[in-house]
């Protein structure tokens, strides 16, 4: 494998990271805390590519030196595959996991309620909560902190294969490969198209979530307003 080709492969790995960081699309793949690590790795790869490129240049000028006759140390051809991720991002528009994955995934049981029960939700009418927080409060401890409160939550629409639709959000621990969905069954509103992002204002349907074993609480929708996809589509 020529040094020039090595430089190109190193550069393509760096270009992948650069594109994802500059556009903010890295948030479709990994957790926000990975940003410094991605930048650092990208800089190292750029430096390696520049040095490999300089080697190629020097060797081309000077003629092959004795033991580096224009090639490296037998990098396997599998190294060519380092260009595939960049090509993938260029050919298939990056998008966060959506309804397809939300239908298939199965969430772990939410973390149990704190020892003294949940603290009341903050003041506000409606009060903003995350989808996973809503699920946790409804399924662990029977949801007294949700009763009588109007909440507003952002998520995307996922058709329920058995009819109706869910308000969903994908939860990740590290990267999208370990994502699982948090789901809330929506009542009293027509289904938006799959993957459409919405802000839903509504109230918890009392008793749902803990009784059915599926851990999917229900919400009575007052308003379902379309919104833009948030920059950070996953929640922790």
């Amino acid at each position: 494998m020529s040094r020039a080709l090595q430089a190109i492969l190193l550069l393509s790995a760096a270009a992948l990271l650069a594109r994802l960081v500059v556009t903010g699309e890295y948030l479709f793949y990994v957790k926000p805390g990975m940003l410094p690590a991605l930048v650092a790795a990208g800089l190292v790869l750029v430096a390696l590519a520049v040095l490999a490129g300089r080697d190629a240049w020097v060797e081309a000028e000077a003629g092959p030196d004795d033991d580096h006759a224009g090639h490296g140390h037998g990098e396997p051809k599998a190294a060519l595959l380092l260009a595939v991720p960049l090509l993938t991002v260029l050919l298939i528009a990056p998008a966060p996991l959506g309804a397809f994955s939300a239908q298939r995934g199965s969430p772990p049981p939410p973390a149990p309620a704190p020892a003294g029960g949940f603290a009341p939700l903050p003041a506000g009418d409606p009060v903003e909560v995350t989808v996973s927080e809503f699920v946790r409060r409804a399924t662990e401890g029977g949801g007294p902190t949700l009763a009588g409160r109007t909440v507003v939550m952002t998520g995307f629409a996922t058709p329920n294969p058995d009819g109706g639709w869910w308000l969903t959000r994908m939860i990740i621990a590290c990267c999208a490969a370990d994502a699982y969905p948090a789901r809330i069954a929506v009542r009293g509103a027509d289904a938006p198209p799959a993957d459409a992002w919405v802000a839903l204002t509504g109230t918890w349907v009392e008793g749902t979530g803990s009784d059915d074993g599926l851990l999917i609480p229900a919400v009575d929708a007052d308003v379902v307003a379309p919104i833009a996809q948030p920059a950070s589509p996953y929640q922790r």
Partner: protein
Amino acid sequence: MERAAVSGHDHGHEHGPGGGLGLAGPIALLAVLVAVAGVGSLAGDALDGPRLGAFATVFISIVVQALPFLVLGVLLSAAIVAFVPRELAARALPRNRALAVPVAGAAGMALPGCECASVPVASGLMRKGVAPAAALTFLLAAPAVNPIVLAATWVAFPGRPEMTAGRLVASLGAAIAVGWLWTLLGRTEWIRLPGGPEAHAGRSRWLVFRRAVSHDFLHAGGYLVVGGLLSAVINVALPPHWVDSLAEQAVLGVLVLALLAVLMCICSEADAFVAASFTQFSPTAQLAFMVVGPMVDLKLIAMQVGTFGRAFAVRFVPVVLVVAILMSVLVGWVLL
């Protein structure tokens, strides 16, 4: 041109560039074909947007998540190769090999990296003359039992500290058992380390260092992509809930979750959350998922073929898999 260059190189070094060379083309081709065929043959709506999109997202996320750790790993490995004196590397571990193995396992607890970092580091240690048994124990233990992983397990299984304890004991036990097995039965000639920039005496340490970094990164990186492609196909191709029906059976449940751990390629820092989602399975099966995953998965197998050669991987991977499963069952039986 490429072929000539490669075979010329093969004759030029004692430690050839590894089984990776003969195998790389076929493996790469196979991976691409499997990926294309897998995505293409799915249902009638072969290239439907959502499935292809999910495939691409999972694939890229595995690669992007792993890249910083791989870069860190090859920097460490190259630093070991270029700057650590041979005597120091040899002296850091007890001379007695049987004793060096558990010490290496304990050392693994201190490196908070993921499995992508530990493959090049183990290779660097071996090139510096550390006994393969100890380096391999480190390779297995480092991603499995470091503090970050144990903390994540603690959080993922609230109120069940025995899961964290079981993971620590079973993973460390499996890593040490494999190291001892290697001491008894392993042959150094199975391992074909990437022919190294180290071979060129007289070059400056800096040159050795930066050549080793590029070299190791290209070696392991291509194979990382192979693992990511395969795992992403699995992610979108398996029917949802296919494993649920198998959860009831005790033995089969353990084997199924161990197999899933191999196929899913989840980072050791995140796999506890996924393990916790398999609520229908026995705690022992969940433990097996967490013990097997950081030691054997598609991405790791691919990277080990690339770094240590095929002759090594076909022996090492099955042994580790069996030992990890047995150790999970043993610890699950006693502890869970």
